[in-house]
């Protein structure tokens, strides 16, 4: 098998995307990430498989050495200064490349960048918190891993918190004296709950919402057991309880629902890009397979019309998904070009596109596995890892129904969903 060697043809170039939305500097960044993907991850897959240390080492190269985690922070607070929201297309290209290599690494990195983008764009969040966050992202030699605790499913036995866009907030903040108390019972983080150095928690306030940033070693932070999950092995997750965690004022920002919506949109954009990249890598693998596999004792797999139709679907799914995700990036940068506003409009568009892209990329990988028979199922070929990773990412994004409820609220004015 050929896995482990980097493909001589850049399979990326087979799938069109609107290049005019990316400047030369953006393509340079994408190129650096492409090299990282090929040399640090894809070429070493058979050696390291899902080895966590290797995943963390490669994440550090990406985030710190290549500087991806500094990219969007303003220069004056230590960043590279790629302006938001225009950086959206640049980020899509970068995360496509990461997705090709390892969606798990992409996912934890994406959670961090989505958080950074949201904080930077939120005008209501004070400079102090931004500076503190910038230091975590830009000054450290290591990757400071943020774990996000966001609204999601609730539990019938737990105290019910505020509802944001139909999802249940998992934590609550209470003002006490000159600071805050943060509480949550077995909250389910979006990523890295088990090994993050910091948590970003969206919590309910008596009135409205607050966003709290806390160090993982703070008193009262209790991580549950390491969760074994289908995929995204780079994201070590666990449930997290916050037992009367005391926070100072500068660790809490008052936000509203738009904070959650913006964060969701960024997360959807980046995970969608990872999904596209992952499907592109699967395309490369299944193409390699179909180019060499003989069926019916003579013809090549790819030349059989029944199989060609399946292979075509793999490519079609990728073509569509890639165009969609680049369009979402552009809409986030320039909503006016699409005739929409920011805020809610982008939240809805990102939900619609993300559901479609994840479904289609999942479909592409499912069909590619089908073509590869038992090789698709064996760990050796790596297709199954993309399959597990994407499914995990899809469910971590919350599935389809909550997005359908958002869409119904938006397009039909449906209530109480």
């Amino acid at each position: 098998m050929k896995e482990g060697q980097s493909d001589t043809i850049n399979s990326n170039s087979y799938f069109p995307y609107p290049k005019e939305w990316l400047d030369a500097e953006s393509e340079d960044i994408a190129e650096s990430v492409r090299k990282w993907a090929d040399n640090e991850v894809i070429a070493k897959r058979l050696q390291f498989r899902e080895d966590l240390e290797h995943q963390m080492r490669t994440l550090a190269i990406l985030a710190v050495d290549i500087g991806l985690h500094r990219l969007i922070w303003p220069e004056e607070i230590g960043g590279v200064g790629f302006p938001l929201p225009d950086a959206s297309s640049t980020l899509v290209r970068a995360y496509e490349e990461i997705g090709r290599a390892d969606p798990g690494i992409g996912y934890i990195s994406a959670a961090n960048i989505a958080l950074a983008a949201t904080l930077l764009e939120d005008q209501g969040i004070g400079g102090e918190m931004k500076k503190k966050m910038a230091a975590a992202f830009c000054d450290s030699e290591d990757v400071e891993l943020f774990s996000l605790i966001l609204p999601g499913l609730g539990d019938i036995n737990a105290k019910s918190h505020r509802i944001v866009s139909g999802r249940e907030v998992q934590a609550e903040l209470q003002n006490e004296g000159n600071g805050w108390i943060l509480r949550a019972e077995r909250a389910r983080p979006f990523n890295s709950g088990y090994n993050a150095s910091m948590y970003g928690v969206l919590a309910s306030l008596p009135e409205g919402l607050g966003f709290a940033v806390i160090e993982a070693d703070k008193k009262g932070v209790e991580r549950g057991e390491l969760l074994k999950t289908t995929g995204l092995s780079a994201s070590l997750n666990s449930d997290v309880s916050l037992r009367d965690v005391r926070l100072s004022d500068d660790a809490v920002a008052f936000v509203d629902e738009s904070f959650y919506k913006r964060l969701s949109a960024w997360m959807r954009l980046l995970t969608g890009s990872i999904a596209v990249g992952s499907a592109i890598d699967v395309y490369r693998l299944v193409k390699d397979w179909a180019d060499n596999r003989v069926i019916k004792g003579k013809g090549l797999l790819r030349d059989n019309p029944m199989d060609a139709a399946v292979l075509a679907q793999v490519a079609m799914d990728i073509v569509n998904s890639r165009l969609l995700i680049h369009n979402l990036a552009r809409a986030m940068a320039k909503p006016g070009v699409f005739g929409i506003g920011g805020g809610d409009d982008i939240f809805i568009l990102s939900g619609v596109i993300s559901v479609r892209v994840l479904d289609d990329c999942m479909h592409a990988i499912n069909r590619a596995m089908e073509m590869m028979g038992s090789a698709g199922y064996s760990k050796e070929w790596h297709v199954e890892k993309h399959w597990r990773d994407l499914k995990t990412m899809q469910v971590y994004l919350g599935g389809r129904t909550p997005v359908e409820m958002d869409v119904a609220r938006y397009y039909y004015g449906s209530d109480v969903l």
Partner: protein
Amino acid sequence: MIKRNPFSKKITSSPVEPYVRKIVRDWADNVVIPKRRLYDEDWAEHVIIERAITSLIAEKGFQKALFPAEFGGWNLGQSDYPATFAGWLLEEVSRADAGICMSLVLCFWPLVMITVKPHVNRRLCAEFAPLFLTDKESRFAALAMTEPQGGCDIENVDLLHGKTIKTTAVLDGDEWVINGHKLWPSNTGGLADLMGVVCTTNPGSDNDDDIAYIYVPSHLDGVTQGKPYEKAGMAADKNSDIWFEDVRVPSWYRAWGPGLDALYFREVMALGGLACQVCTGVMMNVYEILYDFCSEKTLNGRPLKEHDAIAAELSEIVAAIEVCRATAFRLAAILDRPDRYGQRWSPEIIAKARANKMFVADRCMEECERAMNIMGTYGADREWDVEKHWRDLKIVQLFEGGKQLCQMESARHFFDCATL
């Protein structure tokens, strides 16, 4: 906890069904379900897994089920309900673990050639039954069919008639000498005690007469089982390469001889349609898990099952389970009664088996994905077991023909296609 489980009731008219189901369900609930989350790490060592398998196939006696009573078996192969009986078992075992189910299936599958009426090879039954009669140790059989150049072509007997088989059997006096390389048989990686090996007596020939099905005890010189493969799921099913280097077996270890081996091998393929029950068994457990999950977890302040949009999704899942189970047991009834529905090796029955398996595997896979989607972040947790079922199910879609061979064999029969 679920109070009333509609999928635990009997689905056929047999009075025996509840008893068989209960035996297996008790085993599943006590032995497998409490431990199955450990299986993914036990895939190579197979210690916890093997204990569970032994307590089913050896201690409960299933490994001798197919053999005629005169050889100490349960006579299942002589009955009018081998497929239905197997269907109950497969469903109940897969409800707990589809990988263990593969191990069980392989106790039956390679032996079908010699134990099921109308083709009972008494000499070979007498030879091999003693191996399986113990209730202390599990005995593993394997069906060695797939080769490096491809599995489907070997299964595709009606089109290729064994043309691509590379494993050779050469008659030398009163012994067959076997050479070749097989991939993937379940119950290998060191487990197999006895293998049914699909070989050719004339490489490159497309004459059914040259397809040979020969039994090879694994302890013989020249048989090597490789290290187990690491897979996406089915941790309890061990698969590996097998090499045969000048392996010698008595000439009468060939199941039936020219023409008949190919014919009954087709029947083995048709019985692969019982993979439907693997899928429905898995989905029965997904239903049970969802019942609890959707009662406990809430969306927008309401238990998931009381959220109308989620309820609609849940209804799709149970509709699929209902229909797929009906389909699966109808197929089993067809496979049980060749006198009524046609021989199991006929293109018609093979096509029906392929069509049913394809439909049921696709639907169940889709519904298992739906279950994960409903569960959100919890859908990917080992703790809830649905993700495990999802990983296991995927291969049921991919093996036994791969989807495309299923499509082709169905189309070929139902539309009289001449060139597929």
